Each structure stands twice: as structure tokens, then as C-alpha cells.
């Protein structure tokens, strides 16, 4: 409260909020529509300046705002007796009894992995890990779901090798076992591979921390790496006037630093454990803009950020660059002023930076200042939650009619059958995945009682009799042929895989990979898939606790198959009940269940 600005200062500051002479329609270059721009003007009651416009453009991007998918996503069942936190936080959480809970989430990093497979995949893993420890949970397992083009193309091999090495490089270094995943090869993913990373963490129910900022006068602390020009998108600086720097100075590919992540993770978990934080949030897409507006909106408060206090890595960074940078390995925390010293000590001990960059205010405004100069003032709630939702058209794609009358070639003789069997076994889509998971540390933390290679990965929970099985599944081909049934199958398959390990499926997370939703056929696929998945979840009684949507997975207008990925958790009450797939003894009966 001590540092709340006097109204005099605020007025003086407001002077510079007058729009600079921005080129007309610069908002279009930033990816905003006419309608969205009008909304921004009416929210602010004036024209936005460039910084404000940049902040809106990244926060209201599809990636951050879910403006095309929000409505459809409401269909998912998200409640259940175990659910502690449904979608909407950094990760979903469900209870497993004994005062313990599991946080889980999936995230896609498809486009970055297509450009730089190692770093793209690595930073994808880094992002999802931060989502988990942002809830105060210690990550206990990673999984991943991968899709590539056919393996006979050198470029595809390069992507596959890089992605797998990147996933391993990051999770192995942070020290989280990768216990499962899937990888498929299909033409439609050739130029647009899918890299979905899932992380699960264990948390005591009474130390769960959330992102909503609280307590007027509390400090806003930026923890971790310095901020550079990472991931600032090309589209963001298209205007002549503002683009004095060369493209070279603005790398949009990010390099992961798993070592720093490990230190940031340990520091944050220690801070949470010792009760030093009020709230915690990771910095992901749209960097400070997104995380601060979410923290403020969720807490029903305002936040003031002084960009002069943000530790920087790049020289001469502009305010908008600081506010939208996607530099990795950073977290944002709110803490009471008298805890700041202690927090700094903990971070120092772990060898990472903690900088007080602002404070919680009463007025609901996200205010960006540079020392005493106000640079931006935006109602946090509007920025975070009032993006105009899109009403997209749906149309059943014409290809379905042809496909449904496709003549399936018939198998002729017995000889054919064994030949086909051999071909199937040798197919990259069915053969052993050992080549992949051998590159992942599956064992660190000494909990992995079900290794990759069987239906689902299993970790035991030390100090209890319990274990948890996790599986990630999806089948783009089915969804392409029938998105509704494909969605159902994805959920059912994950559930079956868990049951095969003796686990009761209890919660789900998902990652919905689709083409351009502005095409009615694609949006139809999306809506149908969602319907199928939701229905399967309802029937099986499995709530969805978190998820992620990735649109625009296309290459030169050719969309990928609709590919929802399902990540599911199953509870094994007694780890001795955990089952394995192999035939055990000679003479045992073999029984086929189902139709």
C-alpha cells in the first residue's frame, strides 16, 4: 500500500498514454481484426498505444485466448468427486486420497518443433513442467505423443531424431522420468509434426497454490532467467516506424535451459513448501502480459509492473518486447512484502534471480510503468477474459462420402495372411518403440514400477500403497474417417490401456490438434471430435481436468488429420494389483473379453 501511486502521478503518467502517431490499421499487422480493435477502443475508452495494442494482440491470439474453442470446450464434463481443480488453472488437479493429489496437463509445441526440432521439443517439455510446479506439485512423470511424416524421407528422420533427443535432453536433465508416450507416422504430418508433451506432478492437497493474485500491496516477483527477445513473433513488428532493428536481433526460436529450469523448480517448490508465496504462475506464451493479466483477473485485483526492474538479457529492449517476450524458465509470484527477503535468500541459494517487479493494486488495472512513467493501463479482466469469442461455421466435409464407400482390398490366401502379418509387424507404426524411449530417463525418482513398453506407464506413490498409471493416446486416422467415433475411441483406448495395468481411470487431460478452424470443415471435425470425447468421458465417468488446443496445423493449406490426444490417469489402490501384459505360465488360460 506504501507504494500505491498518488492520483497526481497517475495523471501525469497518463499523458504519455495518448496514442503515438501509429500507422493506420497497424492492429491488423499485429493480427487483430477490425471488430477486436473496436472492442479494445471501447474497453479503454480511448485509442490504445503501441504497447497496449501489442499486449492485446498476443493475449487475444488464438493460442492464448481460446477464442475459437472456448464455447465447444464447455461441453467436456469437468466435475467429479476427485476433482480439486478443473480446467482454467495452470494444470488440473485430482485427489488420490491420503491428503495427496495429482496435477496434470498436456501442451503442444508443434510449430516450434517443425522449425527447430530439438529446441522446439525441449522448450515444449520445459513449458509443461512449469505448468505443473506452478501448482506447487513436484513433477513425477512425463509422457509425450508424437506424429511425423513417413520415415523414408530424410527431413522426417531429422525431425524425429531432433524431437526425441530434445524431449530426452530436457526431461532427463531436469530429472523427471519419461514413462510413456506414442509415436505414429503418416503423410499428413510430414511438414507439420505433432509434439504433445504431458507432465504430471504430486502435491499435498494443503500446499496447492493457485495463480490468482491477492492482497493489495503484495509484491510481484519475477523468478528465473533474464528476459530476452525470445519468441517475439515476426508479425508483431511489421510497421516501418517501429521496426528499426533487423530481423536478426529478434530470434523467434527459443533455446531451452533445462539446468535453470531444474533450479527454478527446486526454488519454487521450496518457496511453496515453506508457505512464502501467495500465488504462483508460469510465464508461457505471451510472457508477462499473459501471466500478469491472468493473475490479476483471477484475483479480482490490479497489478502494476515496473519494466525498469525486469532483468534483461537483450540490449535496448523496448517496453513491448519486455511485456510479450517468451523467454523460457521464468515464473511470476505474488508474496507479502515482509516475505521478500526470505524469498530472495531461497532463490540465491539455488543460484537463480528473483526480482521484485511490481505490486498488487486495488483498481483492477494492469499498469505497466517505467519508473515514474506510465506506459500502459488496461483493465486486467478485459485483457484476460473478454476476448470476443468467434462464432465459427461448421460444414460436414465432402471427403467423408467418398471415404465411406472406399473398397477395402480383400485378403486372399493364408499365405497372404502371414505375409501381411509380417508387414504389419515391421511397420514403423507397430514395431518396437525402444529406439525412442531408450533415450529417456525412465527411472529417476525411483518410482517407476511400469516401464515404457507395456500399455501404460506406472509410478508408485511413496509412503502409500498406491500407484498411478498414465497413458497418452490418439488416433488421427479414425478421427479423419469419423471424428465423433474417433473422439470416443481415443478416450476409450486410453481408458482400456489403464485398465490393462489394473488401474481405475480417474481423470483426463487432452491436447486437440486440428487444422485451421476458420474452415468450416475443420471446425466441424473439431466440434464432432469434442462431442465424441465428451460423450465417452460421460459414459466412463472420467472428468477432464485440463487441456490444450492447437489449431492451424496445416501445410500449404493441407490440414493434418484431426488428432486429439488424450492423456489419462488411472489409480491403483494397491500397487501389488498392478498387472503386466505378458503371458506368464505355460498352461494358463487365454480369454478374449468383449465382442
Amino acid at each position: 500500500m506504501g507504494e500505491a501511486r498518488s492520483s497526481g502521478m497517475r495523471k501525469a503518467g497518463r499523458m504519455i498514454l495518448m496514442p503515438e502517431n501509429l500507422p493506420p490499421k497497424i492492429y491488423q499487422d499485429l493480427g487483430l481484426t477490425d471488430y477486436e480493435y473496436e472492442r479494445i477502443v471501447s474497453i479503454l475508452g480511448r485509442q490504445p498505444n503501441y504497447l497496449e495494442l501489442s499486449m492485446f494482440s498476443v493475449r487475444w491470439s488464438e493460442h492464448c485466448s481460446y477464442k475459437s474453442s472456448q464455447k465447444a470446450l464447455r461441453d467436456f464434463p469437468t466435475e467429479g468427486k476427485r476433482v480439486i481443480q478443473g480446467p482454467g488453472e495452470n494444470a488440473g488437479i485430482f485427489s488420490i486420497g491420503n491428503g495427496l493429489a495429482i496435477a496434470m496437463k498436456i501442451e503442444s509445441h508443434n510449430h516450434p518443433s517443425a522449425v527447430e526440432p530439438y529446441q522446439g521439443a525441449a522448450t515444449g517439455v520445459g513449458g509443461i513442467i512449469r505448468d505443473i510446479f506452478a501448482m506447487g506439485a513436484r513433477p513425477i512423470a512425463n509422457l509425450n505423443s508424437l506424429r511425423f511424416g513417413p520415415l523414408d524421407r530424410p527431413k522426417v528422420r531429422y525431425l524425429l531424431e531432433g524431437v526425441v533427443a530434445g524431449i530426452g535432453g530436457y526431461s532427463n536433465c531436469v530429472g523427471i522420468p519419461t514413462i510413456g508416450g506414442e509415436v505414429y507416422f503418416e503423410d499428413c504430418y510430414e511438414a507439420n509434426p505433432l509434439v504433445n508433451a504431458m507432465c504430471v506432478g504430486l502435491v499435498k492437497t494443503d500446499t496447492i497454490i493457485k495463480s490468482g493474485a491477492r492482497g493489495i500491496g503484495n509484491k510481484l516477483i519475477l523468478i528465473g532467467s533474464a528476459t530476452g527477445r525470445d519468441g517475439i513473433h515476426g508479425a508483431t513488428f511489421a510497421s516501418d516506424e517501429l521496426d528499426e532493428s533487423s530481423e536478426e536481433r529478434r530470434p523467434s526460436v527459443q533455446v531451452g535451459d533445462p539446468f535453470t529450469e531444474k533450479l527454478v523448480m527446486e526454488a519454487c517448490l521450496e518457496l511453496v513448501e515453506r508457505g512464502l508465496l501467495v500465488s504462483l504462475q508460469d510465464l508461457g506464451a505471451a510472457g508477462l502480459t499473459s501471466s500478469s493479466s491472468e493473475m490479476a483477473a483471477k484475483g479480482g485485483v490490479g497489478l502494476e509492473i515496473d519494466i525498469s526492474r525486469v532483468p534483461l538479457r537483450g540490449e535496448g529492449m523496448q517496453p513491448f518486447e519486455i511485456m510479450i517476450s517468451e523467454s523460457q524458465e521464468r515464473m511470476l509470484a505474488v508474496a507479502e512484502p515482509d516475505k521478500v527477503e526470505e524469498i530472495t535468500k531461497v532463490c540465491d541459494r539455488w543460484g537463480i534471480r528473483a526480482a521484485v517487479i511490481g505490486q498488487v493494486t486495488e483498481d483492477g488495472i494492469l499498469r505497466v510503468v517505467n519508473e515514474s512513467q506510465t506506459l500502459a493501463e488496461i483493465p486486467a479482466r478485459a485483457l484476460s477474459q473478454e476476448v470476443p469469442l468467434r462464432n465459427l461455421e461448421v460444414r460436414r466435409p465432402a471427403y467423408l462420402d467418398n471415404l465411406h464407400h472406399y473398397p477395402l482390398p480383400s485378403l486372399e490366401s493364408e499365405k497372404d495372411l502371414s505375409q501381411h502379418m509380417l508387414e504389419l509387424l515391421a511397420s514403423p507404426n507397430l514395431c518396437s518403440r525402444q529406439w525412442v524411449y531408450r533415450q529417456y530417463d525412465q527411472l529417476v525418482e525411483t518410482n517407476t514400477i511400469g516401464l515404457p513398453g507395456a500399455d501404460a506407464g506406472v509410478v508408485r506413490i511413496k509412503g502409500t500403497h498406491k500407484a498411478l498409471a498414465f497413458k497418452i493416446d490418439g488416433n488421427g486416422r479414425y478421427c479423419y474417417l469419423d471424428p465423433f467415433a474417433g473422439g470416443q475411441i481415443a478416450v476409450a483406448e486410453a481408458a482400456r490401456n489403464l485398465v490393462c495395468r489394473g488401474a481405475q481411470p480417474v481423470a483426463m487431460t487432452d491436447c486437440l490438434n486440428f487444422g485451421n478452424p476458420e474452415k468450416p470443415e475443420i471446425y466441424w471435425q473439431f466440434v464432432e471430435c469434442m462431442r465424441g470425447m465428451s460423450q465417452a468421458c460421460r459414459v466412463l465417468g472420467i472428468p477432464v481436468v485440463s487441456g490444450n488446443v492447437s489449431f492451424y496445423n496445416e501445410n500449404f493449406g493441407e490440414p493434418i488429420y484431426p488428432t486429439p490426444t488424450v492423456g489419462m490417469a488411472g489409480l491403483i489402490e494397491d500397487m501389488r494389483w498392478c498387472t503386466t501384459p505378458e503371458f506368464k505360465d505355460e498352461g494358463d488360460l487365454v480369454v478374449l473379453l468383449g465382442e
Partner: protein
Amino acid sequence: MSKVRFGVIVFPGSNCDRDCYYVLKDLLQVKVDYIWHQEEKPKGFDCLILPGGFSYGDYLRCGAIARFSPVMEFVQDFAEQGGLVLGICNGFQILLECGLLPGAMLRNQGLKFVCQFIYVRVDNNQIPFTGAAQPGQVLQLPVKHNEGNYYVEEETLKEMKRRGQIVLRYSTKEGVVTREANPNGALDNIAGICNERKNVFGLMPHPENSSEPILGSQDGLLIFKSMLQYMEDGEFRYGGGEEFRYEEGREDDLDA
């Protein structure tokens, strides 16, 4: 409860520290504490463990930066006074970098991280870290590393053999040392070595990740139990002689 007290050193980026701690505390129920990398004079420890993980991200070279941690002077002194020092994976790399053990690690021959269960044959059970093993006993342990391709100059290798410093070698389940059993290209299938005095031991496989039947193998426990047994016996009844005679172990011609 045993009086022996273990210390597990925590470097920035260590990630098997908690695993070692768990095995000692919960499975073997012995006294164990973490030692922070910045501590210069920790007191009252009988055995030290440098755990696996990625100290300093393994940037530059595995173990290269960690070896300069303030705690490392203490480790050196401790070793010089005959204290038991165990380095696992990254810990082994740190021991190599600081010269407590001879040789260096190159990248795996396959250029990829390898995580899998392998077999190692105990070629010397006369040291404090393998005393509980039978001669030539085969252990099933996991490896998980990028740089486990052990290298040492030929002259030194000869000396090491003469003194019985080659302790573990990658082998088949039956204990035959073959090229196929070698997961990383290590010279002579070397998986674990000790110093001349036999009180410093480094190995690439992870005994702490294989110390319980439910995790697939409990062979790793043997390493920790050997150390404990040695400490409790309170005397050096192993590996005294200058010339070490390896048990006749089978070995395919690795040079072929």
C-alpha cells in the same frame, strides 16, 4: 541402527540425490544427510556419495564445472584420509574431472542418451564397494547417460588392471564380457573403477535406481550394503596386495 553416517552431495542440477537418500534412509535405514555443494567443512560423515544427474546442466563437459564446487576440496581431503567416496554416473564424471579417478568420459558411441537395464560383472569384489558380492557375480543395473564411454591411456589401463582397479565391466547375463553387452563403447567394457587405494569408486550404472524388487532389480543394494558392511567391520580387510589377480572370467575378444 548402524552408526555409519552417509552424506549425499547436492550439486546444482543433481537429480539422483533424492534417490540415493531414499535408498539409504528408507530401505537400508541408515543415517544420511544431504551436503550442499557450497559447504566447505561438513562434519561427521563416514561415507560420501556424489549422485547422478546433470550438475551445472552438464554444460561445457560433464562434471567439469561441479568439480570446482566449494565442497570438492573437502571431498578430496576426505578421500585422501581414506574415507569412502562413491560417485554414480554424473558423480563418477566429477571424480574423473577432479582427478580422484583416472581417465575421462567420451560421448556414447551411439551419440544418444541410453537408458536401459544392463548387466555388469564384478571383476573385483575385494574393495569396500563390492565386498558383499561373489567373485564374478553378475548384477543387473540400469544405465542412463549420454557420456559413459570410458577412456584412459593404455599405460594407465595396464597399471589399473595390475592393481585391481577395474571393478565392474559390462557383460552378458551369464557374465561374458562381449561387445554387444557394451551400451556406450567404453574401453574394455569398463563400467566402474576405483582408485589405487580402493576407497574411491565410480560407476556409470545407477545402483540407487535398482534397489527394490518392485523396480525390476535390487542388485544395486549390494553396493550400498558393501559400503555399510565395510564401515561396520571397521577394518580394511580387502584388496591389500599390490598385484591383483582377477578371477578367470570369460571374455570375447573385444579387439577383434
